[in-house]
């Protein structure tokens, strides 16, 4: 018996040993940690973007590399993984505010597991040549230069059904409180997204007043960003109050169901990220024949980014190479086409893709995308007066979700990291998410339940008590 047990043990040790030994071929590995469904994963005929890069790298250098690709669903999951310090990645793709958090951790030396390596732009030829000038500008303004290279970007706005919703109403976040659309609105179940309409309500007058000050667009973004990102305690409270007063007007909060609900007609207004909006608008048209529009409200239009960063200890050489590869316009088009979000890369191929998707010769709108593509295109794309124009019918729809007009993009602020106010904001959020029932009513119901429980208990034990009493009386009588 013992012998058999030992031999089993031995066998399992051998098998396990082989697993670890057989895997350790001396192959260079690049470990990438990205959002789910956030890169072209190829199909039967075409290899995925990552495989294509590995082949390309082999052709150029003669060195074999393998990509270990892991995905996450939320920034917070990703942060938790990195914070444990158990897994080393070479490239990670967080959102703007997380990049900000990681840069702060690097510069203040507060958390080694979140610290970053710096990029060397001389090794990122494609980024320098093809990244949109608008994106570079905004990255510089937010202090991301050196630490992060953009990947995808977009706006936060609302998808709406023009059949039921007045277009004028969609130009302000006030729509979320508009009783005309009661129970037809959904809000994103995410404190950072909900903070946008809330702060817009808190500072509406000041935000609208910014227009009259004749500010440059960079200054406007800065001033608007300061207002919308305010985390002074009284502003957090005010945001909480604003959200609470919204709660009875909206249908509910959602993370994923909004897209299908608006197509099904359950709701008519859905707070959404531009990439999701492009997808929903397309799906609604294709599957249900429903027309949906997208609008970024003017009193607090927000822009977001996801970008590549290299955690401390990353293989920076390979990481640079892959990021540079992803910044090539033809690769950017592949990814955009696959995931539906907008790449930060401009260039001829990307503009061709835009024309192919949205251009209509007799389109009623002419949209000026100079702010986005300027300096990345070859000469023949410019109009006579030096503009980059698209003639299209898709304004206010998919096209606007993918490429906001200049006025929207230039006014877009970035939601910053809440920093050490994070917990306070979350407490406000938990308060908003808890139940809209007055404490007096709750306590009243609670007391009724407790009284009921006591009554049931007494009633059930009554026979026992009765018989005990009778027994006592009987015993007393006997004496």
């Amino acid at each position, binding site marked *: *018996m*013992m012998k058999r*047990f030992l031999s089993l043990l031995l066998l399992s040790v051998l098998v396990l040993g082989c697993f670890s030994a057989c895997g350790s071929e001396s192959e260079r590995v690049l470990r990438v940690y990205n959002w789910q469904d956030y890169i072209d994963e190829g199909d039967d005929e075409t290899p995925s973007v990552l495989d294509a890069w590995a082949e390309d790298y082999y052709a150029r250098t003669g060195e074999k590399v393998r990509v270990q690709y892991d995905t996450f669903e*939320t920034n*917070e999951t990703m*942060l*938790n993984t990195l*914070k444990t310090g158990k897994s080393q990645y070479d490239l990670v793709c967080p959102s703007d505010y997380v990049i900000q958090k990681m840069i702060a951790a690097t510069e203040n030396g507060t958390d080694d597991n979140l610290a970053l390596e710096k990029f060397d732009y001389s090794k990122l030829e494609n980024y320098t040549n093809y990244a949109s000038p608008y994106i570079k500008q905004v990255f510089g303004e937010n202090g991301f230069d050196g630490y992060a290279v953009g990947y995808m970007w977009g706006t936060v706005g609302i998808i709406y059904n023009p059949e039921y919703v007045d277009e004028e109403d969609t130009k302000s976040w006030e729509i979320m409180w508009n009783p005309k659309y009661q*129970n037809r609105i*959904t809000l994103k*179940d995410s*404190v950072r997204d909900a903070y946008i309409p809330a702060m817009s309500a808190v500072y509406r007058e000041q935000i609208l007043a910014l227009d009259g000050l004749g500010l440059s667009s960079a200054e406007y973004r800065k001033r608007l960003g300061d207002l919308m990102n305010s985390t002074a305690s009284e502003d957090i409270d005010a945001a909480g109050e604003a959200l609470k007063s919204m*709660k009875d007007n*909206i*249908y*509910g*909060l*959602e993370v994923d169901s909004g897209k299908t609900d608006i197509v099904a007609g*359950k*709701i008519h207004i859905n707070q959404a990220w531009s990439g999701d909006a492009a997808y929903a608008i397309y799906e609604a048209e294709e599957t249900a024949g429903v027309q949906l529009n997208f609008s970024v409200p003017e009193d607090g239009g927000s822009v977001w980014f996801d970008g590549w960063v290299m955690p401390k200890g990353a293989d920076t050489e390979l990481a640079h190479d892959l990021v540079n590869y992803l910044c090539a316009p033809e690769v950017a088009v592949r990814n955009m086409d696959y995931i539906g979000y907008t790449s930060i890369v401009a260039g001829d191929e990307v503009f061709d893709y835009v024309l192919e998707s949205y251009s209509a010769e007799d389109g009623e709108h002419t949209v000026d995308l100079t702010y986005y593509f300027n300096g990345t295109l070859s000469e023949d794309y410019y109009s006579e007066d030096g503009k980059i124009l698209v003639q299209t019918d898709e304004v206010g729809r998919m096209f606007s979700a993918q490429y906001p007009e200049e006025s929207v993009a230039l006014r877009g602020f970035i939601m910053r990291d809440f920093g050490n106010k*994070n*917990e306070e904001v*979350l*407490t406000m*959020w*938990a*308060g908003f*998410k*808890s*139940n*809209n*029932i007055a*404490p007096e009513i*709750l*306590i009243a*119901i*609670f007391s009724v*339940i407790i009284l009921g429980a006591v009554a049931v208990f007494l009633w059930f034990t009554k*026979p026992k008590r009765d018989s005990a009493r009778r027994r006592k009386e009987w015993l007393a009588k006997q004496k």
Partner: protein
Amino acid sequence: MSKIKFTRKWLALPYALFMILFVVIPLFLILAYAFTDAEGNFTFNNLLTFFGNGSSINTILVSFIIGVANTVICLLIGYPVAYFLAHRDMKMPAVMMLLFIMPMWINFVLRTAASRDLLFWIGINGGEYPYLATMIGMVYNYLPFVILPLYTTMTKLDYSQIEAASDLGARPRQTFTKVILPMTAPGIVSAATMVFMPTMSSFVISDVMGERKLSLIGNSIQLYFDQGLWHMGSIVAVVMLLLIAIGMFATKNVQKEDDVRGTML
């Protein structure tokens, strides 16, 4: 060297390892997180923040009320059903039982999502009536958990006692309250514990049916952990653990008479 002998005790080793790895250690981890701050120092601050916060009390009270309401409604519906199913005159009880258990074979998330659409269709949408829709979803999901233990108890009912009661002049109502109800008490308690605790800690049903407009203890734990506030999340988990412990203790006396939880689940 003493010889290691392979005895029957060794067979318990895998489970012991499992218990230590997945029950004992996590329990201590939760406690450790609940009573430490971000720097790892011991503190009662999390507990104080939790009880000093109106929304936590609100969440606990609402969870408790929904838990009780769900238990009572499930019992009111499930008790007669179980009684008839278990009755000796019932034809094909297994088939009938199957019909009640069948919904449980459909994936829980799918089932909840489908009931959300169904309710919307008949006009009880979660946006306008988040509490009503959530209650319906809860009852729908937990009803089988009530019927099963009650059914098991009732199949063991001694009908001669019921007959004796009426022979001795008890009216039907008296027969029920004095004979049937006490005989099925263990089943009721078992059913109640199987519904009450999970209801309080569930978060999928309230999220889907209530359109995320209401918050139970489970939702609040999820919120804190999602946002990386592990210490706050852990204290909520500890409070819930205590509530469950109190619940178990309160029903312990009735339980020991008969263990009826081993059912066809």
